[in-house]
């Protein structure tokens, strides 16, 4: 194990540690910009420069391996000048509109300039070529603000394995973007927004729709209702300086009510509904395969995550039949709100505005998909990210931290703990297993504290198998069957599961996929910055929310039961088929 000295502090580190990591261990802070923990350390931006004794030049600490006897200085005049110059040169070409930029509050470049004490701009020169791409419903790119740090490229290519973005051209003319300056809407971009989540500046941001919500709220002819995804409650607090992993469900409800929504509802409600539909769909597929000997597509893939749907349509169009036909909880909510609920309160669907708050940018795209209009009008009208909701509350002058805890409205705000865990990787599967087990065996789900441990945690691909014991009635055919499941988060990991299935290396009955690493709690619309530690804290919060509930199984949700009795009939019945299920389209992979 190499031992090195950093600013006079001796530190022993494991083989393969970089100088930057060693400095962190020694308690020495080195500024970074292009560096992305666990994802990218390529030394592209040169902000993390340090002096190494014996080295000819300053070195980039993020990509410099720590070696035995190395003597590193991080705070010399030479280092300070070097870092300042690097940042000044970046600023000289950065075509920013800092005062009104959407990133003015959390721009890493701006913070860095401040932290390094840059008092004036010595360099003036050509600006980066400015081209604004507003082609997608979810994301807006502004190349003028791009500093070519390549974080988005690495995330898009190596984590998500989508490859929508790459460095185009050479030298000063380099532009980060799709091939041949194409629009994002014309390429394979799945609109997951992981690029926007890691962008240090304002070069890739979500489409801000706050003004549209204000306009709806101020229109007296409209009934405006809001749904919040499970992942919001564990992250929104970060917009108001709560530590990651603080649950703010009650304050969030209070804030939404003060913003003027006519009803505050929960996507959790339709998460429970999704379990009823998707679980039934799975059991029907299994029956067809095992009893009727029919050809059915197995494994069944979950379909809650619109980036994943987009990915399948582009990259695995031969497996679209494996995707559950269930709409996502967001879209089920829109369809139910503008039919069942609208009828209940005597409002026409066209006079109702459904606003979603999602941890996701792809949800903006999903809501705009032309087939998502089964209520007769667009089912979900406006989608805000968690970040936008934070900004919205701030704009309204609401002091979030002093708000009381309030409850969601009935009936579409009633939910169970099984719905909460839709927020994190493994949660949809666990929720499905809780319900499927009890429907099939009519006995309580036998896992301690209702958690299926092998599918919990941040591992990219997780597998488990559950042996069915005591299957009853219609489901007796499942007696003794080994139900094999897989859980993947991050599209690169999802592709690994698909490859396993295609090659015959593994066999699964049900696969849960969430587009973003760690699941929706790490979504492209969540407060910045989502590190591994932040993901873990948010997941822990979600499990706390689940465990604190009286009802923790979707089939026990009384409002969902009432919906079936009053309106839908049975899961996967005719009305469900019309309102809650959808179909997919084949696209090209290039």
């Amino acid at each position: 194990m190499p031992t090195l000295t950093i600013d006079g502090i001796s530190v022993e580190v494991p083989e393969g540690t970089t100088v930057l990591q060693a400095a962190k261990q020694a308690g020495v802070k080195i500024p970074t910009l292009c560096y992305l923990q666990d994802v990218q350390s390529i030394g592209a931006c040169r902000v993390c420069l340090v002096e190494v004794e014996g080295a000819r030049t300053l070195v980039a600490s993020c990509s410099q391996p720590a070696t035995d006897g190395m003597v590193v200085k991080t705070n010399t005049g030479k280092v300070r000048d070097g870092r300042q110059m690097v940042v000044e040169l970046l600023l000289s070409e950065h075509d920013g509109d800092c005062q009104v930029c959407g990133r003015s509050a959390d721009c890493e470049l701006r913070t860095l300039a401040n932290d390094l004490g840059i008092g004036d701009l010595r360099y003036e020169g050509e600006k980066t070529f400015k081209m604004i791409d507003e082609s997608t419903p979810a994301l807006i790119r502004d190349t003028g603000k791009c500093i070519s740090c390549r974080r988005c490229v690495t995330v898009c290519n190596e984590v998500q394995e989508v490859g929508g973005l790459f460095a185009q051209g050479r030298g000063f003319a380099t532009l980060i973007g799709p091939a041949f300056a194409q629009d994002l809407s014309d390429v394979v971009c799945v609109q997951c927004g992981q690029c926007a989540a890691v962008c240090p500046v304002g070069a890739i941001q979500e489409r801000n729709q706050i003004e549209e919500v204000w306009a709806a709220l101020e229109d007296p002819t409209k009934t405006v209702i809001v749904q919040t995804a499970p992942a919001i409650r564990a992250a929104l607090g970060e917009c108001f300086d709560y530590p990651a992993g603080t649950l703010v469900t009650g304050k969030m409800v209070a804030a939404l009510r003060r913003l003027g929504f006519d009803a505050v509802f929960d996507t959790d409600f339709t998460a429970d509904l999704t379990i009823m539909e998707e679980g039934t769909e799975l059991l029907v597929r299994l029956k067809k395969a095992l009893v009727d000997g029919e050809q059915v597509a197995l494994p069944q893939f979950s379909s809650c995550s619109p980036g994943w749907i987009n990915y399948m349509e582009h990259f695995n169009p031969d497996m679209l039949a494996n995707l559950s036909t269930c709409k996502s909880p967001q879209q089920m909510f829109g369809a139910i709100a503008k039919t069942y609920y609208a009828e209940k309160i005597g409002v026409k669907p066209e006079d109702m505005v459904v606003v979603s708050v999602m941890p996701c940018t792809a949800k903006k795209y999903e809501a705009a998909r032309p087939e998502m209009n089964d209520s007769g009008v667009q089912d979900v009208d406006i989608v805000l990210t968690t970040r936008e909701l934070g900004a919205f509350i701030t704009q309204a002058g609401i002091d979030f931290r002093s708000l009381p805890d309030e409850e969601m409205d009935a009936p579409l705000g009633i939910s169970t703990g099984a719905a909460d865990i839709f927020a994190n990787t493994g949660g949809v599967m666990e929720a499905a297993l809780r319900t499927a087990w009890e429907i099939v065996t009519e006995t309580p789900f036998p896992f301690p504290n209702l958690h299926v441990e092998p599918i919990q945690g941040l591992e990219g691909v997780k597998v488990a198998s559950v042996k069915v014991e005591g299957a009853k009635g219609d489901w007796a055919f499942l007696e003794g069957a080994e139900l094999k499941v897989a859980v993947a988060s991050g599209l690169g990991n999802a592709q690994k599961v698909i490859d396993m299935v295609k090659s015959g290396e593994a066999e699964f009955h049900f696969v849960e996929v969430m587009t973003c690493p760690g699941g929706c709690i790490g979504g492209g619309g969540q407060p910045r910055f989502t590190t591994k530690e932040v993901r873990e804290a948010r997941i822990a919060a979600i499990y706390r929310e689940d465990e604190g509930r009286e009802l923790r199984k979707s089939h026990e949700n009384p409002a969902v039961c009432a919906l079936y009795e009053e309106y839908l009939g049975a899961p996967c019945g005719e009305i469900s088929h019309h309102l809650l299920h959808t179909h997919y389209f084949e696209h090209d992979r290039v």
Partner: protein
Amino acid sequence: MAEAVKSCECCAEEPTEEELLERLDAVIAEYKGKPGALIPVLQLAQGIFGYLPEVALKHIARELRKPYSEVAGVVGFYSFFTTVPRGKHLIRICLGTACYVRGGVAVMDAFKKQLGIDIGGTTEDRLFSLEIGRCFGACGLAPVIMIDDDVHHRVKPKRVNEILAQYAEEPVLAETRSA
């Protein structure tokens, strides 16, 4: 580049896009699965098509399972690659340091004037394309130009006609000149 020559000499008629894609498939089959396949496949594809049309690039991306954005990024990075059709003969004027100081720009201007095209352009008869090259490693002979695989050294603006005549298939040059 050898591919291009072969395709021109052995075929009486212009090969169809389908035939060209078949040839590209043979190249891809040879390189598929090998690390670093993209650049040689692009080079050979340019040989087959004479340039890198969208249909070829998308085909390469699909078959090598590479993102189209990455394929485009590599094509855009190397000046050797072109996405616009080139003429039969590619003229590359070196503007590396040595050639630059010894009159490379004047040579370039003479070619531009003589061919009636700008850098990156192709004559209407598709006979010549003009590009800037970076150092060919023949600095002692500056200013240097390359036409296809031939190096011409100590080029002077007044020799431009004489050089072009070696490549022109009569009466084409005359037409070009009048244009």
